[in-house]
């Protein structure tokens, strides 16, 4: 399976978005989405961990015996997450403290394992790196959007700067867990509707012209 970098990017960002379509990896990050800065830090961490893990595992793919593949994958991922944790502690001690256990939880983020299994196991290192990175960016896009809404309505600010007018009453529920669940569902709904509409339009066009069907994206893989 070889795919073009541009197509991989579009797929990971939109047609096969890890959160919206594959529903992967929400566990470890949803908790920090009431604050845009922390969400950015976390999702950059996830993107880098995914990219480097995919790259490394793709390099090693012929050396790992099948039986211990999963544990090797987890160890490689843990290695990169420990690096991220150490870097955060050194350069962003504030964010590191607020994120608490969630940095370590990047290890069990299913997106990383998912990309390692679905893509890196069958592709060259460099393109695997790109696939991991773009998956992370697709993930980042969704979570930052959710964090924007939550911080804006929950605190009246964006990235810590107050943007809402004087009389604005903050919506406390946006700081609490339920709002994250509701917002993920709403974004998911929107994205799937848009895609379904596009698909329907494509189908109609195909029926009209009997043109070849557009190639489907790589099938979503479960970790």
């Amino acid at each position: 399976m070889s795919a073009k970098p541009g197509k991989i990017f579009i797929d990971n960002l939109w047609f096969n978005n890890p959160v919206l379509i594959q529903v992967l990896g929400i566990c470890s990050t949803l908790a920090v989405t009431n604050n845009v800065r922390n969400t950015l830090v976390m999702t950059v961490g996830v993107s880098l961990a995914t990219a480097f893990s995919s790259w490394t595992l793709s390099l090693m793919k012929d050396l790992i015996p099948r039986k211990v593949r999963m544990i090797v994958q987890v160890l490689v991922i843990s290695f990169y997450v420990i690096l991220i944790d150490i870097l955060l502690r050194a350069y962003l001690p504030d964010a590191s403290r607020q994120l608490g256990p969630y940095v370590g939880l990047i290890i069990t983020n299913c997106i990383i394992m998912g990309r390692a299994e679905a893509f890196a196991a069958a592709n060259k290192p460099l393109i695997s790196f790109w696939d991991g990175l773009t998956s992370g960016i697709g993930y980042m896009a969704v979570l930052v959007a959710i964090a924007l809404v939550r911080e804006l309505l929950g605190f009246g600010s964006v990235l810590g700067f107050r943007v809402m007018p004087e009389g604005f009453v903050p919506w406390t529920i946006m700081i609490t867990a339920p709002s994250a669940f509701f917002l993920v569902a709403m974004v998911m709904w929107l994205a799937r509707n848009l895609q379904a509409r596009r698909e329907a339009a494509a189908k109609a066009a195909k029926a009209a012209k009997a043109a070849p069907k557009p190639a489907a994206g790589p099938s979503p893989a479960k970790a």
Partner: protein
Amino acid sequence: MFQKQPMMRKVLWALAPIGLYSIWAYGLRALAVAAVTFAVGVGVEWLFERKKGGKTSEAVLVSCALYALSMPPAVPLWIVALGIAFGVFMAKEVYGGFGRNVFNVAIAGRLFVYISFAGALGGAWLPHGGFGMAAGSLLGPVDAYSGATPLELMRTGGSVPILDLLLGLRDGTIGEAPIVLILAAAVYMAATKTANWKLMVATAAGGLATAGGLLLAGVAKALPLESLLAGSFLFVAVFMSTDPVTAPKKAPAQWAYGLLIGAVAVIIRTFSLFPEGTSFAILIGNSFASLFDRMAADAAARKKARLAGAAGGAA
């Protein structure tokens, strides 16, 4: 425009006297809250159903009425609109409309604004009586009012005369106070089989038992009888825990459901950050309803299998 639902009409009849009480207690303020609630709630359902080609249910009227009656009288009207819009949209339409919802629509809406704007709602009380004249203002911005509801008095260790509680001569949300009228509605709905009496009794029993237990354990502010009469306990026990869509269907499950709601309501209002726990209790009860039904069904199936096995052995 509306789909006919005789059961829902009976609930509306049962709510009518409470509505009249609310007009006596808070005057135009109560009407304004109701007007916004009905306009937004029915509007959201109509928009959704129109897209699907369905009819607006009369159940949404019941949800709106219950929601409006459970608002504090001085609540800002935009909060009223936000809550009912959320409730009808997220708790009902998204699940597929009437009869499909898992969570009580009125409670979902109320809790959304109650958690969000605890400050704004917690201080939104008005003195009751005289068709809103007691509050000194009819519609516009309402002056800050430093009175305390019986529930708040109890939390701080004060006492409340029981007769006033019974007659609804106290401050509270728009329609939670008139205990006598709520009890009359309960009898009417139980007699016409509009609402399940088991659910009401179980909820009240759960609340009484928990408050009694806490009192015996030395928690002074948990007074059993007052717990039942203050706040929105009875209102919720009679109108919300009996919601036929979100309550369990099997009798043993219904008992467990009511007891759970009563107990959780008392525990939350006694110990947690929030002064009132009834709405949370309903949502928690709703979460357990399907599981209780499933467990009751499994137990019944096991019993049947055992009986069949015994009969087979005897034969």
